[in-house]
């Protein structure tokens, strides 16, 4: 399926932002009918490169060729008319509009000034059928699940008759069934001659769907190989620039007495009679498929949602936790799944975000000890190797991985005895992941009780002392001997 001129060629793309050179002369080629996996650590330049391709950002130097002809890419319109559709990691849907309306947003089907709603709805229904998805096209998008919204996004790109589709971490919130469907659709698109750029950190998936792999590191293209000619380790090496012997650091678990005990937690239909315990020095992994109710369960423990029933005991003493404030004062911390919406105040600086849950002990008689705050933050910037130009940098400008580190730092400073990590390494590059795993091990070694929610089974098997699997609001199984456990075992429990 390789034509004479490649479908897409990006040549010598250079892009700088104040203080950092994101792209230093990147070349990228995509052929019609192929899936190109774009790999790289956070901060390597993948998102920036795709923003340039999508017309959202303008390259300082370099050019983009479609079918061998150079085309200006100054705006979203240019990009669209060149046949490029980008599906971003964060959704671009209007929550109050329906799936059908979102699909045709900006290019509604009109007749004489009026929107031809029925025609749109028919097209939308057909498109979703092709995707093999059952979505009520008349529901407002905010009532759809994250996974369903993702599928609407993909349908949107398809509605544009794009020839080049960029997918940025599309499978992060999909169940394996939906990922399977997605791959079938991608193969279908390949047969139609559409070229796909697939960005993901899930190396297993890439092995399953990609034809070729391009690796970016520090703003440059450091490797371009057919998938059959590169191993998983080689991919990691190229991304990180070093050989990662083990993806997960070794640990010697020293597990002590029960720290937290939750029994009979219940909230509506999403959490039904869930009980769990976690001990000092232990990492308990809470896993399952998307929608299993894991986040909802820990939110009950943290006081973020009100529970219908259930008791929570800390060191044997029963607690009434009615708000996050109470949970925090008792030494429980929660790193949320969605760091942008719930973990950080994006328009505030790193320092302000760091300080927020810590103001109770950083203040004296209502006044914040600002010098102490700065010193503490400096300590964590060093410890976690957070890349910031200075403490006052606005959080929104940091890369995903660094944002996660800032969130981490604020809870570490709080010195919580029970830490709940909800998908701590989602959307984070391999190098930073390892650092986070090391940190979790250190925390456990220091006697903290850790609950880790994760959807990545390798991660669960690599990090946990004990595994709890959930499915549709219930605990379906507990795995105590992690070393003998397999991914299939977990999957079984996750689907039962």
């Amino acid at each position, binding site marked *: 399926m390789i034509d004479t001129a490649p479908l897409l060629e990006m040549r010598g793309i250079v892009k700088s932002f104040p203080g950092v050179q994101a792209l230093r002369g990147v070349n990228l080629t995509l052929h019609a009918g192929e899936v190109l996996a774009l790999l790289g650590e956070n901060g390597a330049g993948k998102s920036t490169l795709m923003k340039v391709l999508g017309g959202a950002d303008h390259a300082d130097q370099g050019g983009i060729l479609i079918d061998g002809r150079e085309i200006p890419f100054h705006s979203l319109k240019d990009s669209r008319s060149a046949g490029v559709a980008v599906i971003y990691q964060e959704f671009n849907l209007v929550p109050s509009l329906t799936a059908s309306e979102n699909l045709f947003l900006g290019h509604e089907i009109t007749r004489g000034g009026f929107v031809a709603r029925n025609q749109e709805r028919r097209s939308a229904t057909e498109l979703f059928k092709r995707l093999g998805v059952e979505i009520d096209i008349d529901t407002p998008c905010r009532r759809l699940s994250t996974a369903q919204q993702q599928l609407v996004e993909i349908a949107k790109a398809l509605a544009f008759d794009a020839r080049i589709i960029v997918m940025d971490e599309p499978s992060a919130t999909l169940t394996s069934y939906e990922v399977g469907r997605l791959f079938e659709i991608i193969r279908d698109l390949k047969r139609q001659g559409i070229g796909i750029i697939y960005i993901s950190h899930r190396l297993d998936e890439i092995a399953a769907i990609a034809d070729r792999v391009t690796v970016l590191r520090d703003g440059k293209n450091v490797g371009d190989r057919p998938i059959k000619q590169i191993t998983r380790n080689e991919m990691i090496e190229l991304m990180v620039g070093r050989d990662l012997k083990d993806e997960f650091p070794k640990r010697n678990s020293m597990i002590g007495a029960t720290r937290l005990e939750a029994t009979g937690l219940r909230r509506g239909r999403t959490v039904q009679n869930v009980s769990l315990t976690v001990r000092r020095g232990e990492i308990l992994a809470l896993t399952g498929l998307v929608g299993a109710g894991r986040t909802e369960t820990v939110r009950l423990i*943290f006081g*973020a949602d009100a529970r219908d029933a259930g008791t929570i005991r800390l060191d044997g003493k029963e607690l009434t936790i009615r*708000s*996050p*404030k109470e*949970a*925090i*004062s008792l030494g429980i911390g*929660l790193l*949320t799944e969605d760091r942008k*919406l*719930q*973990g*950080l*105040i*994006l*328009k*505030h600086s790193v320092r*302000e975000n760091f*300080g*927020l*849950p810590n*103001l*109770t002990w950083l*203040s004296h008689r*209502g*006044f*914040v000890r*600002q010098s102490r705050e700065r010193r503490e933050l400096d300590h964590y910037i060093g410890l976690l190797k957070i890349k910031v130009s200075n403490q006052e940098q606005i959080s929104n400008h940091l890369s995903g991985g660094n944002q996660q580190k800032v969130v981490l730092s*604020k809870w570490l400073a709080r010195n919580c005895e029970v830490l709940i990590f909800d998908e701590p390494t989602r959307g984070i590059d391999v190098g930073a992941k390892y650092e986070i795993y090391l940190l979790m091990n250190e925390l456990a070694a220091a006697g903290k009780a850790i609950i880790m929610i994760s959807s990545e089974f390798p991660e669960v098997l690599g990090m946990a002392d004990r595994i709890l699997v959930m499915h549709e609001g219930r605990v379906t199984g507990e795995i105590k001997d992690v070393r003998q456990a397999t991914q299939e075992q977990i999957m079984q429990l996750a689907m039962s």
Partner: protein
Amino acid sequence: MVFVLLLLCAFFSAKTYKEQSPTGEAAAKDVAAAILEDFKNAPRVLIVTSEQPGDAAFSKKLERDLLASGVRILGIAKGEPKDAREALQKIVTASEKLEAIACTQVTGGWLLFSDLKTSFPALGEPKVITPKTYRWPDFLKSDNLLNIANQIAVIAIVAIGMTLVIITGGIDLSVGSLLALSAVLAAKFIRDFAGGMTATPMGMLLACVVSILLCGVVGLFSGLMITRFGIPPFIVTLAMMLVGSGLAYIIAKGQSIYQISDSFVWLGRGADFFELPNAVVLMLILYALAHILMSRMKQGRYLYAVGGNREAARLSGVPVQRVLMFAYIASALLAGLGGVIMASQLKSGSPTYGTMYELYVIAAVVVGGTSLSGGEGKMFGTLTGAFTIAVIQNGMNLTDVESYTQKVVLGLVILGAVLLDRNRHRA
């Protein structure tokens, strides 16, 4: 935004730049100095003043200064040219001569003095001495600047509370009505319970405190509606605006309550600290405290956090509901304080006070750089915003812009000021 404010000041200074002439004691000093310089040997002087404000002070000081320097004052004429003519006549009759006639700017220009040689030859040739003129913008005269500050004091103080509310991502439309309610309540309490025209300072103080606290109760109610029932602040405070205004009219029976002791105007019209109006001093103190709250205190950080991302703040342990209550109660209390100051300025409480004030207050906050979406904004920015509005209004008054046209201009200039400020930040 300070840049824009300075730009406006420069503009109005340029437009009102003209010949100024001192009056009162300053003028007297000037004239006395001039006379002593020109005439070394105990000159004989006639002082001529009119009924202008400041002339009495001029005359008194001049008399004192001249006498102290050994000058002989042969007469002091006050009022009309004919009074001056009479005085001159008296001097002639007494066979005296005159070295100088000390005049104000106004009296020096009287026709009477233009041809003294012909009309009063026996006087010798007295020189008419007037205060030296200088060039200075009307806008920058200290009277005018203090006037600006005094005019804006009420709005600026209420704007402190509005800034807090807007930073949390909300809005308070009720402040104008609360201002009226507080003014009416204070006046009524003074009239009916503290003795009215013979009220004691303690009685008046108590009346004011109670009025302000009652406004605080309204703020508490608004806060509860917003936090417990989740009703949008716009709706709640809009409703309170109507309720508050209605209550003010009911309590005042639609009238202005004016039977208040004269000493009540101390806050609104007095100037006891370095000649600064008391209301302005209070405003500065409150702004300093508010600034400290927002920049150095935990509660300030919480306010910013709630406005920046309410859910993230909650999940970080911020007591969101308490913080919001604080903002709305503070706003109501400050509106109450504004009402009391206004009542003090006008020595009466009327339900018509504060009409449309919420818009000016919001304008001050927004012009000062605070974002309506919440999470950011500086107290001193609001002060700058308030002054910007005041400067625009004052400048238009000085340059004789018609009052209806002023409204149009104010609206457009506010828009222009914000655009200019945004452009500078983007650049």
